[in-house]
């Protein structure tokens, strides 16, 4: 960690968006790590049925509470809608609640989105950190990425990574409808259609036993492929 070396005052206009569902085991740690660098953290509790909502009350974060579980896409959309209403906000970084992402990467993304001209910065596990990804996951991700790039006419090395940074102006243009994991495909389709500028930055993923059981299953991979087929025919 490099908390002493970083001037975090410039992150005042940056919001960290953490969608979460039943993350009581890790949410404390994830938020406390993020709080070292970021003042504005929005957690969207997507109808958790465990102790997550009680834990969030004791943390110094803004909490948006869905009354029922709607899905990750819906949680991200709600977060976008809330943050885009805040006057002085400049950018949003989406960060998974399960502790898979590195906070150092989020800091890098924050610096980049403030200084670069791109509308969106996508995180990629395939730049520098490919070997950290389990084999099967790597294979599935590569297939999904290849299909996504062909269908959406994009050039990304990792299309379904939770760590992303958005300029607020870009958020106003993107309105998501998909509520489940497949929202990432819809997001990419909108980015491609609207001609928003983007680039990729490396993002490391810390695969723990907890995060692999909580993360995207093969069933969700099927949903993503299904959404890509729908996108292909609705172009």
């Amino acid at each position, binding site marked *: 960690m490099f908390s002493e070396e970083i001037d975090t005052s410039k992150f005042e206009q940056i919001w960290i968006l953490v969608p979460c569902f039943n993350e009581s085991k890790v949410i404390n740690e994830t938020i406390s790590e993020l709080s070292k660098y970021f003042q504005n953290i929005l957690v*969207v509790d997507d109808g958790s049925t465990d102790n997550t909502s009680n834990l969030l009350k004791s943390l110094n974060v*803004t*909490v*948006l*509470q*869905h*009354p*029922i579980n*709607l899905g990750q896409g*819906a949680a991200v*959309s*709600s977060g976008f*809608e*809330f943050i885009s209403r805040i006057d002085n906000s400049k950018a949003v970084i989406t960060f998974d609640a399960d502790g898979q992402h590195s906070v150092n990467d989020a800091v890098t993304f924050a610096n980049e989105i403030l200084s670069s001209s791109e509308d969106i910065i996508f995180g990629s596990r395939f730049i520098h950190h490919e070997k950290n990804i389990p084999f099967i996951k790597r294979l599935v991700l590569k297939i999904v990425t290849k299909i996504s790039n062909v269908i959406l006419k994009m050039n990304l090395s990792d299309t379904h990574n939770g760590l992303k940074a958005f300029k607020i102006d870009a958020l106003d243009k993107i309105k998501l*409808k998909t*509520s489940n994991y497949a929202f990432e495909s819809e997001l990419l389709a909108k980015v491609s259609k609207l001609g928003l500028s983007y680039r990729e930055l490396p993002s490391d993923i810390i695969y723990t036993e907890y995060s692999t059981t909580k993360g995207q299953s093969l069933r969700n991979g099927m949903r993503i492929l299904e959404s890509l087929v729908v996108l292909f025919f609705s172009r």
Partner: protein
Amino acid sequence: MTPDLTFGILFIFLLLYSLVRPFQSIFSKMFLIFGSCLGLLSVINIEVVDEISRSLGVERGADLYLYLGLITSFLFFLFLLNRFSSLESKINKLSRHIALKDLERESAKKEVKPD
């Protein structure tokens, strides 16, 4: 009551229902009218249905019913999917609205509270 009579009553009821009920789509109305007429015809005289199916290029009336049944099931499935997705979207909007309102209310409470 014989099966013919039961089905006959059912198809008459369906025909009347399709004529009386207001439909959002004219296709749904026409589909129900056409289906109930065909059903009624098959009860009255199956050979007429065979004639109709032959004129449409289908050998037997039973085959025509099978094809129409499959098409109906497929269209119904699509209609249901569309309905579900529309309902899901409405629930999402409502839940988001509630969540945002709750947060606004809590923020207002915090601002009013003295230190």
